[in-house]
């Protein structure tokens, strides 16, 4: 779950009445004990379905998320930044590979997932539908969008599905580089010329609303997924994740002398929670349903790559091997 938003399908009927009650009890006891569920273990249909949906969206987010940063590689200031950004983008695409494989162990084929991204059926993290105008936007993404992703990923790594957790352990190890690299970039801008500081502040102003959307709709309006929490599919509510992010990163942004474009943003020392202006959830809905500044471009880039690389994959078609779901 790269961003918490819109990740889970609305559960109309959980279908649990069709599950074997004894097996269900054993399954829940195993999760309760902190054991991981593995691909060959019994699991309820709903668990399988929601996990596929979540892991697949996470994988798509890695692929699409590599696009806004990827386009900045050639324009990154200097050799070191180019090298680092290239390494980061390679990591993100690698994350998608790991995640697709984890979802495959649950029974959805790779072919189908990649197709559902291209034909527009599957979602990915909403934040990547916004444009990266300047180098400072790229710095914001590397530091703070990744920071948000890390909050989600660290939580999910403690979830119940073995293959997803193992993929996330590898991913989180690499994310620590992304976070440090991104912070390094922003610090450089913050301690640079007046112009650099202005650029960075402008990027923060642009990205703050989508960053607040990143963790998904407020708990007040989002569907409560108590059962997904109990099954350790969802590891925290959207508001909890958002609060954790604010707690860790707002002080770090302020420390660099930047402001955040929300006059109501403050930590309530009594409750320990952050208070802020309610994000515009209508905009969030509009963008996630296709009407954001970059939705069309992101999918078109992906699809153009698919079409123009087709001859390579046709040449690779050598049916000596067989597609099967990965083992673990």
């Amino acid at each position, binding site marked *: 779950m790269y961003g918490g938003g819109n990740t889970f399908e609305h559960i109309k009927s959980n279908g649990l009445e069709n599950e074997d009650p004894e097996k269900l009890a054993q399954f829940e006891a195993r999760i309760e004990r902190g054991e991981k569920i593995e691909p060959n273990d019994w699991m309820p249909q709903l668990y399988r379905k929601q996990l596929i949906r979540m892991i697949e969206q996470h994988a798509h987010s890695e692929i699409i998320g590599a696009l806004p940063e990827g386009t900045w590689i050639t324009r990154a200031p200097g050799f070191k930044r180019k090298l680092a950004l290239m390494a980061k983008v*390679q990591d993100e695409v690698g994350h998608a590979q790991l995640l697709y494989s984890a979802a495959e162990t649950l029974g959805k084929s790779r072919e189908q997932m990649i197709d559902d991204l291209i034909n527009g059926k599957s979602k990915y993290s909403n934040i990547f539908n916004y444009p990266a105008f300047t180098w400072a936007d790229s710095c914001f993404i590397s530091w703070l969008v990744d920071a948000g992703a890390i909050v989600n990923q660290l939580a999910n790594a403690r979830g119940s599905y073995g293959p997803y*957790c193992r993929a996330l352990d590898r991913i989180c190890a690499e994310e620590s580089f992304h976070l440090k690299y991104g912070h390094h970039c922003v610090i*450089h801008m913050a301690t640079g010329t007046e112009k650099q500081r202005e650029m960075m502040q402008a990027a923060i102003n642009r990205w703050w609303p989508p960053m607040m959307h990143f963790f998904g709709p407020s708990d007040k309006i989002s569907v409560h997924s108590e059962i997904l929490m109990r099954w350790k599919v969802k590891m925290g509510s959207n508001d909890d994740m958002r609060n954790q992010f604010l707690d860790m990163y707002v002080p770090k942004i302020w420390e660099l002398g930047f402001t955040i474009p929300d006059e109501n943003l403050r930590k309530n020392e009594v409750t320990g929670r952050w208070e802020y202006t309610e994000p515009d959830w209508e905009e969030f809905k509009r963008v996630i349903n296709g009407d954001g500044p970059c939705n069309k*471009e992101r999918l078109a880039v992906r699809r*153009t790559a698919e079409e123009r690389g087709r001859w390579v994959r*046709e040449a690779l078609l050598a049916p000596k091997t067989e597609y099967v779901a990965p083992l673990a």
Partner: protein
Amino acid sequence: MESLDPRVNRLNLSTTELTSKAPLDQLGTYEVFSQLKEDKPYFHVGPVHAPNCEMAFLFAKEQFSRRQTCTGLFVVETRNIKVSVFTEGEDTVYNYISNPGELANGNTESFELFHLKKRGKQHEYIGTIEASSAEVALSMVKSEFINDKPVYNIWIIKTSDIESSQDEDKIIWDTLPDKKFRDAIAYKAADKIKEFKERQ
């Protein structure tokens, strides 16, 4: 559609309706195993998809050994891995493995064995066994490699099904220590922040 990125604009993006793509992404499945240091056992690191063994190996090298250290890597087609039953608690897989009778009938091959010793973790290399079949190999491990700790699952792979790095290939990892730019420690900036705060 006008992009902010000049490179994207030069791509001349296709703007036709979203449709299904050609079904060309269902390449074969391979499992990857790696060794981090000479004296450490190989363990399962994850799957890759590729059209053949050589490409699976190259992809695996990029995907699973581009940081820190690596001294060996191999890939095997997922369909060629024999998987035992799974057990739980204190129950070991070896309780379910029986002796198939005739052990040696002259023609033997070598098999690689992997144990799952902790639920939720990866399979780890245990040893190589010469046997006439995977089943016979399993029954032989019982006496050779197990102690009182439970084993929850076994993978067994015919050695000849493996595409592995050789000693002379190890130079592919020689440059890993130079790639500090891939690691968090290369981006220290605490001094810069301190200096900045002092200036305020």
